[in-house]
Every structure is written in C-alpha cells, then in structure tokens.
C-alpha cells in the first residue's frame, strides 16, 4: 500500500484531497477485514459465547434471582485439609482444595520431568532431536481417553504393574493402585508432560550456545554455567509451560474420573455430578468460580510473561 504512494508527486493543492482519498481507501480495506472475521465471530457468539454467558448467569437466577447458589460454598460446616493445614471449610471447598493441590503437584512434577528431556533434545543434533520428538508427539496426538484407559490397563488389580511386581516376588497379593490419588498423579503427569516439553524445547532451542561457551571460557564450572546462564535464559519456557499445564490441569475431567477414587473428585467432576442431579444453578456457580480462578491466574501470569510467548509454544 505505502509502496505505491510515493510514486506520485502530488501538487501542493492536491495533497489534502489525496490524503483523504487514501484514508477512505484504507477504511475500505479495513472494512473488508472486519467482514472476513464476521462469520467466525458470529458463529462463536451464537454457539459458544452466548451459551457460556447464559450458563454463568444461571449462577444468579436459577432457580431464583440472588446469590443463593453460592451459599453452599460460603457456609462453613467442617474443617478441611488444604496442603496439610486444617482450615474451616465444607465439602465443596474441599474439592477446590484438592483440585488446586493436584494442579500444583502435577505442574511441578511435569516441570521436573520435562526439563531434562527438553534440555537433551535442545543439546543434541536437530536431526536426532526431531527423531526423539516423535516419542513426545505420539502421546501428544493420542486422545486423553485412550491414554487414561492405558493407565487403567497398567494399574488395575490384574494389571501389568501388579503382575510384574507379584512375578518378581515383591508383592504377595495385588496392591490397590487404581482409583487412588497416586493413579491420578501418574495419569495426569503423563498426559500433560508433552505440553511442558514443547514450550521448554522451543525456548531452549533458541538459546545462543555462544553464551554458554563464553561462560565456560570465563572459568565457569558446568553447574555454574547452567545455573547462572542457561537456567535464567530458559525461564520464559518454564513460565509458559507451567501456566499452560496448570490451567489445563485445573479443568481436568476424564483422567480423575477414571483413575481417581471417591476422595479424588476434582472440580470438573463435581460440576458434572451437579448437572446430573439437575442442580443447574449450583453447577453454574461452581463453573463461574472455576472460570474466575483460571482467568485470574491466566491474566496475571501472561502479563508477567508476555502472551505471545505462550502462543508460540503451544502445540508444536
């Protein structure tokens, strides 16, 4: 657009008229872009925006106007355990506490496991890294339901792990592995690991190796070079990965429902239960709280990290 403008040299009097004409043209171009976005925006408004907004409104108007649906959350009936501390709460707040705890543990564990993998993938030759990346991408593309089912096969009473442990003489009778908190952790970490590896790997690939060589030449021992140069440079990847995994973990439904027990109900499972009990207003209130928690965490952390970094890392 701008490339063609300076080809003409307008006479002094025509300058204003020409500027107006260009402004009009530019508005026309922008109008065309708005029209291109319109179908998607209209579609999403009808089949996603409006239904979700109407559902959230239900928290205040189903069955009657008011904040009645939040009362079960704010009425403190008994002490609950949150991160080992006993605080006043109720059965519903306990589910929120469990959800936060599972999300935090899962996020930290995936970070711990993903970091060495991403480090090695970024350090070796790209052709080999691409080959090993297949091992990360196959689970990434496999549905969560199938992967949770695979863990049911492995962890069940007659499952692979019990059989192996009994075959080795470590166990005399099958241990209860399925429907425990441990199973939820193992399954969720497995499912979310690729979401941590990919952003970490993207950031680590971009780190200038000359900086590490310079640090080595200046006498840094390998550990110091890692701790004071590489680790700080990989922080954007850590931030993006943790934020992504944490937000995804908060809303997990399939894995805790299949692998968890009675005591491992996460907030999504609770919401689904309330819907089937036809307590739609209360389910909406729970959904609203979950959404607010997720949004606040997302907005705060993406402000700190910069949103574009986050998008750069998701899904390869």
């Amino acid at each position, binding site marked *: 657009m701008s490339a063609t403008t300076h080809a003409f040299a307008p006479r002094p009097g025509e300058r204003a008229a020409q500027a107006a004409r260009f402004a009009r043209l530019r508005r026309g171009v*922008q109008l065309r*872009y*708005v029209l*291109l*976005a319109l*179908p*998607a*925006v209209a*579609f*999403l408004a009808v089949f*996603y925006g409006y*239904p*979700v*907004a*109407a*559902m*959230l409104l239900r928290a205040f108007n189903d069955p009657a106007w008011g904040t009645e649906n939040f009362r079960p959350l704010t009425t403190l009936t008994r002490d609950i355990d949150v991160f080992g501390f006993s605080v006043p709460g109720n059965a519903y707040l306990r589910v929120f506490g469990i959800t936060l705890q599972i999300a935090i543990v899962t996020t930290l564990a995936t970070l711990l*496991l*993903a970091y*060495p*993998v991403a*480090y*090695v993938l970024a350090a070796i030759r790209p052709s080999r890294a691409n080959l090993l990346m*297949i*091992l*990360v991408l*196959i*689970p990434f*593309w*496999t*549905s969560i*339901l*199938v*992967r949770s*089912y*695979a863990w049911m*096969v*492995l962890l069940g009473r*007659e*499952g*692979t792990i019990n*059989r192996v442990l009994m075959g080795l003489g470590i166990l005399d009778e099958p241990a209860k592995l399925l429907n425990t908190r441990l199973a939820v952790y193992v399954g969720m970490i*497995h499912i979310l*690991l690729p979401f941590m590896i990919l952003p970490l790997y993207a950031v680590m690939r971009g780190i200038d190796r000359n900086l590490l060589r310079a640090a080595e030449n200046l006498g840094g021992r*390998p550990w110091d070079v890692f701790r004071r140069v590489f680790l700080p440079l990989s922080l954007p990847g850590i931030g993006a990965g943790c934020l992504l995994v944490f937000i995804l973990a908060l*809303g997990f*439904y*399939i894995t805790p429902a299949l692998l968890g027990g009675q005591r491992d109900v996460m907030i*999504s499972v609770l*919401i689904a239960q309330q819907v089937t009990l036809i307590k*739609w207003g209360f*389910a909406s209130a729970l*959904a609203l709280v*979950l959404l607010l928690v*997720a949004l606040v965490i*997302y907005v705060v952390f993406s402000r700190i990290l910069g949103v574009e970094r986050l*998008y750069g890392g*998701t*899904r*390869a």
Partner: protein
Amino acid sequence: MSATGEARQGVGVGASPRARVRPARAARRRVSLGQGLLYAVTGLILFYLVFPIFVVIPVSFSSAKYLQFPPPGFSLQWYEKYLTRSDWTGATWLSVQVAAGTALLATLLGTLAALALVRGRFWGRDLINAFVVSPMIIPSIIVAIGIYFFYARIQLIGSPFALVLAHTALAVPFVVVNVSATLVGFDERLEYAAMNLGANRRQTFLKVTLPLIRPGVLTGALFAFVTSFDELIVALFISGTGAVTLPRKMWDGIRQEIDPTIAAVSTIFIVLSVLVLVSAELLRQRSERLRTAIPTQVE
C-alpha cells in the same frame, strides 16, 4: 592433556580442518559421565511417555478373555467383535462424519478469521482475537455444560448436526492459530506483484495467497478433525441416545466391559494419531520449504 598435544600437532602439520575439530570433541567426551546420567534419565522419562500407549496395542491382539499383559496368545477376536457389532461401527461412522463436518466448517470460518486478525488493523482486533481463541483455554466442562443447557432449551440434544456445531466452536481456535502462523511469515509483495501483473483480487487470492498458506490451512483442518474425533466431554452431555460418538461409546463401556474390545478401539485411535502426526510433520516441512524458497525466486 592428549587433547592439547593433538591440537598442537594438527597446527604444526598445516592444520587440516579435521585435526582442528578434534580437541573440541575430546573436551566433550570428558564431561560424558554426567551427560550419560542425564541421557539415562531422559530415556526413562521418554519410556514413561510412550510405554503405556504401546501396552494397549499387544493387549488388543490378546487371545485371553480379560485384560492381560503380556497376552498369552495372538488373536484377532476383539477386532472381529469391534467390526461385527453395529453399535461400535455405527459410533465410528458417526464420529467420522461429525469430525469431517467439523473440519470443513471450522477450516472455512477459521481461515477467514485468521486473514482478518493477522492483516487487519481495525478497532477491537485484539479483543476479537482473544474471544476467538478462548475456547482453547477455557476448561472444557464449562463449555460443555453451557452448550448442554442451551441445546436442552432449543431441543438439539442427540443430533449429529448439533455435535458438529458444538465441536466447530472448539476447533476454530486451532485453525486460527495454525493459519495465522503461516500468514505471519507471508511476503505480501507477492500479492502486489500478482496484482501489478493484472490479476484481480479473487485471482490473487486463489492463485497466490491460498497456495502459499495451504499447509497451514490443511494443518488447521487436521487439528479440527482430531479435536472433534477425540472430543468426549461435550459429547457426554449433548449426544443423548441419538448421536453416540466413538469416544462416548468407549466411555460408556470402559468400566463395565473388561474384555479387550476397548483396547482394539484404542489401537485404532493410536494408529490414527500416528498418521496425523506424520501428515502434520509433512505439512510443516512443506510450509517451511515454501517460506524459504520464495524470497530467492523473487529477488
């Protein structure tokens, strides 16, 4: 010690490039103990990632009546059961149709939106962008119950068409993100060149723009297809009895049916995901080739 000796020798002989590389290699070998440990840990973690998926495959070929690993013998009975029972094949066919419909609709909407969001400079663009990609971030249960309440009121529960509409809302962000990625590196001078040579807007779009962003569009379509084909949570609420998809059918049977039929179905999902991974990789390579090849041809 020997590294420096070799280096000195290399320089003395006239420093063939090969000799000069050697000391660096020797230095790398020196830290290999810690590195060996790191590689071993990485290997274990990669094993943890892949192993559960590959356990399912042998179980699906098991001759046993129950889930058992390693399987006592080879049999195709669970595939036979899957292929001969009409509830399984019906669910599969429905899932394919819904996913194809979703891919078509989401690709159309998402590609147009990506063009507008990457190139446009209009008021509210960032807000629209956030709205369009938000289904990707918001917990699925929230979207699912929102759509469920809405469909319950307008009586769309149990219709495959309604599933397509719901899945499209979830799939549009993936198309937008993928197409945007190819548009960001797009050289707009190619379009001006086409128009200077007499092409109108439509011709320019169809013959220049579209071929160049095609890998991104196809990757987006692939994502949209998989998003719908794998989707369970929305389907749990709105598929009713009239539109049971394959994940929904698996979910219904996953706790009662202890025979390995579900392992056979899972194997089909795994094969599909490998196929998708390969296609996505080929598309990515094509997109990179297009991006690097064009500037040299133009200049």
